């Protein structure tokens, strides 16, 4: 089955779930120079679920997340919230995007930056204490952000993202930099967030990680959606036997 057929299948699936969709991404396109980075990207995000945006490096995942968050102007398309258009300037009311390759305020102490975000979001100090405890950030609190190890840096960014009381969190490669045990802990934390009603859109290039945590997947390759749905739906769409893992599904659809 070719990509076009898959996109049509995805659209049909999505249409049947329009009523349940919390957020709808419709026809997003982005061109850098003469390169089409995103083309007619459409999918839906269901409330309280974890959606995995998967694809190889260069597939356009980060660009897509930035377009959805309103941090990069899209050349085409729109984002809708419960069926109503959500212009870029208003997206920060509902969404919070945590980029991957950033190092905010490297000259400040970790605790100070966390406190700033906690106070800016008007969150109680107990919320920050809870996140610091769950993410094991205590040893990093007095250190400058700029000298944190990669693991602590990722936990720090995760804490900044989770401090934002927005219904949808967009996270770029949230498991990058974690070892197996840490990844499992972070996954548990994200599942708890989803169970609490938060919707997560995670960009993940490790397909195994995506399979373990995501309720639904959007397969992105070459800036186009190659398939969207649960793993079972994607497996069926790819014509693979039930029980095929996400790598096989991805290779079949990409």
């Amino acid at each position, binding site marked *: 089955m070719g990509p076009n057929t898959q996109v049509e299948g995805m659209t049909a699936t999505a249409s049947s779930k329009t009523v349940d969709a919390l957020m709808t991404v419709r026809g997003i396109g982005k061109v850098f120079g003469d390169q089409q980075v995103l083309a007619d990207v459409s999918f839906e995000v269901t409330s309280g679920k974890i959606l995995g945006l998967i694809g190889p490096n260069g597939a356009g995942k980060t660009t897509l997340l*930035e377009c959805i*968050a*309103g*941090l*990069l*102007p899209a050349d085409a398309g729109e984002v809708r919230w419960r069926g109503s258009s959500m212009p*870029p300037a208003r997206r*920060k*009311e*509902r*969404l*919070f*995007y*945590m*980029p991957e*390759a*950033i*190092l*905010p*305020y*490297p*000259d*400040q*102490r970790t*605790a*100070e*930056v*966390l*406190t*700033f*975000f*906690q*106070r*800016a*979001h*008007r969150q109680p*100090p107990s919320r*920050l*204490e809870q996140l*610091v405890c769950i993410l094991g950030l205590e040893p990093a*609190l007095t250190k400058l952000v700029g000298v944190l190890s990669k693991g602590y840096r990722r936990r720090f960014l995760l804490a*900044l993202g989770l401090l*934002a*009381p*927005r*219904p949808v969190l967009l996270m770029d490669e949230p498991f990058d930099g974690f070892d197996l045990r840490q990844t499992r802990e972070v996954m548990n934390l994200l599942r708890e967030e989803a169970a*609490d*009603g*938060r919707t997560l859109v995670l960009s993940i290039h490790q397909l195994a990680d995506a399979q373990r945590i995501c309720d639904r997947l959007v397969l992105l390759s070459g800036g186009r959606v190659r398939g969207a749905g649960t793993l079972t739906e994607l497996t069926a769409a790819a014509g693979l036997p039930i029980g095929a893992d996400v790598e096989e599904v991805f290779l079949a659809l990409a």
Partner: protein
Amino acid sequence: MRWLEPPAPAIPLLRKELCELATGNSLWVLTLVLSPLVGYSFIQAVALYTEASRPALSIPELARQLSPFDGILVPTLGGFYLAITLLFPFIAIRLIASEKASGALKLLVQLPYRLIDFVAAKFAALVAAWLIALIPVLSALIWWGLIGGHLDTRETATLMLGHLLYALLIGAISFLAAALTEGGATAAILALSVTLGSWVLDFAALDRGGVSSLLAALSLTSLLRPFEQGLLSVSTVLAMLTATVGFLALTAVWLPPGVSLARRVRGSALIVVAAAIVITGAMQAKAVLDVTPDRRNSLSTGDEKLLGRLPERLLVTVHMASSDTRLIDLDRKVLARLKRAMPRVTIRVAEPGQASVFGATGDENYGEIVLTYHGKSATTRSTGAGEILPILYELAEVGGPELDASESDQPGYPLVADASIAAIWFYGLQPLAFAAAWWLAKRRTLWRRP
């Protein structure tokens, strides 16, 4: 879980900006440079003032010419002006460029603040930076007081206001440069090209008239001049404030990511047009307050009252080259004062084809000043108010004003003093104090910990 957030409180944002300011190096480098620079300017100014004061102690006429404002305050702030022009942009640029470079800006713009909140908080931090940078100047003024010097409050406040407005304008330009460019280095080049370009414009205007004179009027340096003369010009203050607000608004347009180029250009065009309209309107304001205690920038009160009642338009045609020092003298001592005193004055400078170092270039009218009032004209070559005003009164067929003896009764402020001991403070103790503050700022912060 509650999703819709209320607006974020301002204090954490302001605290964050102040913390960024304090932990950065540029502010402390500025203070370390400023301390000896201002100190040297001050000590030299006191030495020169002392030399000028020695004969004035016994000759009252000479004493009346001695003003601490011109002799001490303006030269001391000369070093401050230099450092603010060259180094203040780096402080402003860092407040924005560091967040762009580290990616923090992407998080910041998602917080429940308005764009104007971000820019306002950074601007507040910039004001704080200026106040810290002012410490060497304030310490010089304290030294001046300690050695027995006199300062007039209104003159001093006016000059400080001018320097504050100048620094904030430089800061706002630097903000925009940082918002427009990707890196701090490029932003610095852009901002410095504006500030240093102003100097070039100013120097160019010294030797040429015409267009370069008009351009020089737009230079940042020229904006400070009225304040340095003890003049509080409403139009200059309004123009500087409007330009600063305009640059801040442009910063708010260009700072956030995710905005299309077309939208940014539309927003910028609106701001530029609005600022141009307001500045053009502000320039029409004629109100200029001479805050000097001896009103040395103004004609006598009697002359001003009389001139203010002359209903017709006065046309003054000056046959001199723009670079002629006599014209500069005439403008400052007579023409500018006439423009402030009379409701309707038109000045025309009829420049010769080419001015030489000797002034005249074969033009037999060169050097003439022609006054035309009520259809009658008179010509003079004198550039002094004492000669020009009687001619004008004759043309207007009014008698001259009565002399007010109290106006020429200013005693002057000669002072023979030695400020060399202040070198210990400016070159040693004060830089050490700034270095200690720098060290402490790196160790402690204003942010609260969880």
